[in-house]
């Protein structure tokens, strides 16, 4: 009985170690093709990610501001929006971006792999990563701390928007 319990405990321990090792081994950068048709690779770049969906009212409210950030970013900052893909389609998201003339580079997370890799369980979620892919800041709504952190990578007229 004791041996069985010990083996069970060992197995559980090993499986949890494996899970942890997997989650830590996940790269904290993103490679892929945007809905605009461009290849992106955030490795080695300070990166601002926004996770969103068209059914999320808070997300939609923030989009004009996000688009301004995208259009005024410095070359040192990668700005990427990630549509989480739940109850969404590529065509729907493209139509939304086109209808509103948003230029923001957007990835469609067709299988939730990016959303899960960044442990996103809410929309919107804003994440700022340093060059090594370490998370500097995370927030649900676009708050002042995020805007301050981003301001060094933006044109002056937007840094206090």
């Amino acid at each position, binding site marked *: 009985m004791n041996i069985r319990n010990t083996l069970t405990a060992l197995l559980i321990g090993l499986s949890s170690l494996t899970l942890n090792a997997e989650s830590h081994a996940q790269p904290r950068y993103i490679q892929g093709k945007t809905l605009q048709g461009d290849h992106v690779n955030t490795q080695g770049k300070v990166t601002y990610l926004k996770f969103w969906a068209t059914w*999320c009212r808070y997300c939609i*409210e923030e989009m*004009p501001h996000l688009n301004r950030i995208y259009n005024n970013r410095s070359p040192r900052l990668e700005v990427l929006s990630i549509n989480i*893909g*739940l*109850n969404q389609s590529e065509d729907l998201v493209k139509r939304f971006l086109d209808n509103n003339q948003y230029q923001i580079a957007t990835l469609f997370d*067709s*299988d939730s792999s990016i959303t899960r890799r960044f442990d996103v*369980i809410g929309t*919107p979620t804003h994440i700022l990563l340093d060059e090594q892919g370490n998370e500097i800041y995370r927030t649900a709504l676009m708050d002042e701390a995020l805007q301050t952190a981003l301001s060094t990578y933006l044109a002056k007229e937007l840094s206090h928007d």
Partner: protein
Amino acid sequence: MIRTLLLTTSLLLSFVANATDDSYELVFIDMWGEYIPPSTLPTSEFPRRFIQLDMNVSQADIDRYVNTYPLYSSLEIDKDNKLAFQYGVRRTPTIVQIKQGKMVNKIELGELPSLPSSEHQPIAAHHLIVNALSGAQYSFKVHSKNIRLILFSDALCPARHLPHCEHKAMQHNEIRIPDNMEKLTVIKPFYVSLQDVKNYQKRLRVNHPVLFDKHNALFRRYGITSLPYWVILDNNNQVVYRSTTAPAQSDLATYSSRHSD
């Protein structure tokens, strides 16, 4: 001995029978989407488990939902969306049929939502006249008799996107204001009804007027992007203070003396 053997055999047979008949259905829903009564789903001979995607939900949300829709009493959150990922669920509702631990069928019933069209409509002048729960009207387009100390908040509190919202609501309740200042709470209209706003007032024991900003006009006019958030407006409805932290009690007299006329 024979009795024990028979009992063991019977138990084993029962186990095997259960194992081979181990069929059930997972029904993935999104409680923030359109309500779909379980009775309108295709009928099934197998037991069903209702699963909520782990996106924008807390256990408190589930409890409220089940309270409103008891037919979903077995609803549980798919922690970290593990099941949804495992079975490739991308729409709601989706029925996943499981037999002997394996998916044998997947039925997507949901339609894609229509695109939002009204989020960025211009603010109309009459949207700046906002009703309190008491029925009193507050205008934000003309000169105001009083300086206004406002907490912009959300009736979904507590929620992931509203850090420390309960504490801040209580803090707002306790601020002592000068005679020429009025204290208000303004509630965002997203995903909430008038009843939700009333519940917020009651739950957080709000002791001053609560305004329901039905057209999101005040939030947009004053550029409130994070919540909860404090603003002080002068008599001309111009911002003299804005922050995620409450103004210091000792500074309120200074703000209240800033008449702009």
